[in-house]
């Protein structure tokens, strides 16, 4: 139970910050805002305490979360208009989300990368009460990826600090991400009728691949990345010029992505570029600053301590050979799941139209380019990388892309209903 305490505290603190956030137009709803700020609050608390040289303790983390929760009581977010007609479909979405979140919460993480990378680092950090750079400089094995940004191990470590075990802590956080992804997809499809919004939420909760209960997926970082990019895209699509609440959401999402994993850095960069192309320059600067700042903070700290990781191989010969090998290797490792993911991607992209299309195409294009670049320049065997990561990479961005496609979808025989509330001030 103690592994759940930091998650519960983060939800409380996140709720408090989300109430302040909702004073700005374009801010996310209660559920998405609570999950988003809960993750940011816990991650930031641990990072700031580390930089300040203060050892992580349960009392300090609880104090900061309760402080944020209490401050939320002082905020008076503008009341949103009631949407009575959505209660039935909202309830269906909640039940479907719970049906996914509860099994995720019930199974302690056990994947190999969890055991020997994410969870191991969480144990080490929790024991040290900070980011243990001495350990990261000389890990027992490079499989531990000492150079990766630390948000996911930090979140797991919070459960260990409270006396829980890392496997249960990871499961608890991942159940929260299920809720967050579903909420982001629900909000993203705001302009659709309630049944379609419920479907979008279900697509989010039942994200393919990343919650597969096997040693190749359990407890990995992809659910956190999927949550970050889902929250970011939902914010980007509700970003008319003065929607400061949406900029702040996108910036927070980028901070989460950029401190989670190299793939997260690529997605945060994609979101920043899409913001530059499709929203205001000020919004783009805020999102870019959050991305660059988050990446720089970790990279500078890691470099100063001498932490190293796998180096990309940039020689033209290496890249050229792998480029030629890539199609054949993909065919060799492809499974029905890969094929189904690609069909879903094609259908989702075909469904997107209007003003949503440039933003989504930019994000997907940058993401795809980053993915190919990673496969081509990695020192690891290409078939190994594809076999153990391609389906996860294809899955993280899929639900929110499907939700964007559903924004303009209508069930046959039903007329279009109301305009999107996105651009209206939160009051």
């Amino acid at each position: 139970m103690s592994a759940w305490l930091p998650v519960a505290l983060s939800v409380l603190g996140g709720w408090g910050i989300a109430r302040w956030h909702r004073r700005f137009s374009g801010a996310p709803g209660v559920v998405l805002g609570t999950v988003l700020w809960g993750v940011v609050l816990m991650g930031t608390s641990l990072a700031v305490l580390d930089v300040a040289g203060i050892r992580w303790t349960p009392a300090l983390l609880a104090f900061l979360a309760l402080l944020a929760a209490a401050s939320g009581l002082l905020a008076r977010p503008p009341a949103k208009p009631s949407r009575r007609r959505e209660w039935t479909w909202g309830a269906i979405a909640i039940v479907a989300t719970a049906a996914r979140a509860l099994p995720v919460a019930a199974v302690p993480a056990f994947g190999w990368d969890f055991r020997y990378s994410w969870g191991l680092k969480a144990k080490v950090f929790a024991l040290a009460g900070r980011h243990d750079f001495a350990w990261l400089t000389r890990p027992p094995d490079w499989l531990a990826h000492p150079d990766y940004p630390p948000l996911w191990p930090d979140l797991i470590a919070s459960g260990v600090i409270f006396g829980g075990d890392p496997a249960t802590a990871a499961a608890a956080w991942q159940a929260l991400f299920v809720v967050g992804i579903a909420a982001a997809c629900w909000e993203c499809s705001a302009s659709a009728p309630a049944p379609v919004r419920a479907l979008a939420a279900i697509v989010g909760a039942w994200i393919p691949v990343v919650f597969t209960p096997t040693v190749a997926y359990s407890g990995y970082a992809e659910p956190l990345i999927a949550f970050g990019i889902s929250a970011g895209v939902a914010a980007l699509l509700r970003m008319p010029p003065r929607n400061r609440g949406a900029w702040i959401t996108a910036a927070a999402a980028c901070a989460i992505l950029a401190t989670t994993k190299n793939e997260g850095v690529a997605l945060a960069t994609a979101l920043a570029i899409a913001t530059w192309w499709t929203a205001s320059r000020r919004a783009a600067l805020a999102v870019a600053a959050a991305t660059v700042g988050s990446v720089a903070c970790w990279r500078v700290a890691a470099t100063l301590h001498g932490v190293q990781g796998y180096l990309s191989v940039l020689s033209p010969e290496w890249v050229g050979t792998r480029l030629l090998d890539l199609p054949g290797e993909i065919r060799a490792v492809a499974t029905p799941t890969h094929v189904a993911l690609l069909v879903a991607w094609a259908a989702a992209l075909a469904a997107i139209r209007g003003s949503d299309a440039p933003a989504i195409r930019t994000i997907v294009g940058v993401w795809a380019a980053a993915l190919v670049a990673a496969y081509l320049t990695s020192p690891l065997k290409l078939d190994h990388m594809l076999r153990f990561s391609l389906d996860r990479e294809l899955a993280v961005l899929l639900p929110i892309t499907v939700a964007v496609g559903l924004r303009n979808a209508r069930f046959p025989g039903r007329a279009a209903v109301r305009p999107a509330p996105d651009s209206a001030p939160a009051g």
Partner: protein
Amino acid sequence: MKALRGWSAFLAAAISCALGVASLLHPDRNLPRVPSWEGLIAPLAGAPLPRGAAVALLARTGAGDAYNRFLLLEAAWRRPDVRWTPVQEFPLDSHCDAVVMTDDRPPAPGWRTTWESGKVRLFRRTSR
């Protein structure tokens, strides 16, 4: 065209949800959730190793590189409070004062068994 896009969105949603459900039925879901080497190294949890100690894990005789690599990572998972180093033989000239072994080899001269449980034995130097 508009209707086609709508159907395309529903198709994407249906496939995505179906893949989410299918992930629960993955053929590997019933495979063991703990590695085969877990039992071998599990007694290490009770080994008298001071926090922060530099400890060497001796490669297991006859085991492959991959097995020994994961054995080391499992040792780190069990005892993240000490600093682990993989070694092939007893480290005669290193900073390690403790060695953990999981097979039946005799210790090198200058080392003695100080603790053992199951197949896990802990050695310390008798002299430098």
